[in-house]
């Protein structure tokens, strides 16, 4: 049967490094070690002035093209996820198609999700490939939340890093699907819990400087900055994720022991540690890979998978469970039966 298979994954981080030591000088109540203990992050990468998410996306895509050896003239689908588009319009995927030198026969579009994006992207690409609408796809994700973060808001500046990732997914003949089943969900009542309130059509940017406020924890932000209600996000995650995984395993008819890795969105060590303990997932099945780059939103799951590939911990036939959850609220989970033909 005609199935979609992930062949290779790459990511790209901007050069500028923001360390815990640097942050500790800005937030005297937190030491560098406390930041690491709570977040699991030692440093995060931040884009330079003028550098955008699409720059990271293009760099990641070029890496995956080089790694896989794919002929770019054969790429016929580019799906790009970002919450940091270059422009309100046109679609950033169109700009990326041109910059990558992909043929004009390439279908290209953006979608706007955050931490739940990877399962959504895989499902869309699978749909294109398995219906015959495409055969060679790039699923690209990139975000630059640093652009939205106020420098004096430690609640988010300690967590988020900028990154881009690219997955090459191609058609293959297999006995069963490689991607899926999928479970998705949405609860838009949580939209205000993780939001940049101003800058869209509902509340456009003003001409005068934004008014800054200080919250009870001393964090400074305006309505043009990223706001995260940490306790609300935490509550949402711990209520939603265990059931999401249980439902997926049931639908996939998979015992937990058959799963090589549970790859969760790399939100923070505090949340990951809590979920791992609550769900009693052994360390060996629960990889982490974000201490060097922070919570990179849409790219966290592919970055973990690439690390598993690069370190020789992923083999053909392995079963992965990907779990994304966050801004929206939005969540998604899926199974991957690892079938890559491309050697890492």
């Amino acid at each position, binding site marked *: 049967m005609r199935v979609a298979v992930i062949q290779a994954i790459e990511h790209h981080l901007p050069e500028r490094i923001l360390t815990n030591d640097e942050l500790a000088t800005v937030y005297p109540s937190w030491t560098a070690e406390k930041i690491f203990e709570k977040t699991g992050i030692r440093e995060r990468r931040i884009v330079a002035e003028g550098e955008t998410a699409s720059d990271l996306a293009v760099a990641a895509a070029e890496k995956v093209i080089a790694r896989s050896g794919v002929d770019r003239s054969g790429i016929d689908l580019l799906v790009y996820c970002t919450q940091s588009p270059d422009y309100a319009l046109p679609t950033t995927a169109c700009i990326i198609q041109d910059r990558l030198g992909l043929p004009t026969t390439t279908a290209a579009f953006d979608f706007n999700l955050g931490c739940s994006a990877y399962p959504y992207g895989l499902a869309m690409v699978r749909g294109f490939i398995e219906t015959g609408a495409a055969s060679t796809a790039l699923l690209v994700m990139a975000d630059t939340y640093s652009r939205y973060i106020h420098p004096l808001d430690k609640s988010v500046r300690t967590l988020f890093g900028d990154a881009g990732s690219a997955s090459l997914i191609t058609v293959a003949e297999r006995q069963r699907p490689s991607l899926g089943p999928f479970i998705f969900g949405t609860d838009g009542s949580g939209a205000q819990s993780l939001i940049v309130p101003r800058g869209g059509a509902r509340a456009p940017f003003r001409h005068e400087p934004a008014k800054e406020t200080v919250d*009870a924890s001393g964090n400074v932000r305006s309505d043009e900055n990223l706001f995260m209600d940490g*306790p609300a996000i*935490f*509550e949402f995650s711990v209520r939603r994720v265990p059931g999401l995984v249980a439902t997926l395993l049931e639908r996939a008819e998979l015992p937990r022991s058959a799963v090589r890795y549970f790859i969760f969105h790399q939100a923070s060590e*505090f949340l990951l540690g809590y979920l791992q303990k609550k769900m009693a997932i052994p360390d060996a099945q629960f990889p982490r890979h974000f201490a060097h780059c922070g919570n990179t939103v849409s790219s966290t799951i592919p970055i973990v998978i690439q690390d598993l590939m690069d370190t020789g911990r992923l083999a053909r036939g392995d079963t992965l469970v990907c779990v994304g959850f966050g801004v929206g609220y939005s969540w998604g989970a899926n199974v991957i039966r690892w079938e890559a033909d491309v050697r890492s």
Partner: protein
Amino acid sequence: VTRDEFLAGLAQALEWPADRPFNSATRLKGDPAWDSVAVLSAMTFVQDVVGVILPATEYEGVEVANDLVALVADQLS
């Protein structure tokens, strides 16, 4: 869990500075130690006591430590 045990455990969970007393009258609101991470620590500590995660909104009005004691009062001996 007694009230005193709860308060002692809460102080530990919040990593309350050892050189500052922590009791039911301790003011949390506005204190640098009661930051966004501390609220999450309180949520997980309370969960350990009552067995479920209480809604995040329960913590929005917390001003003193006794407000957290009140959340679990039914479970204290």
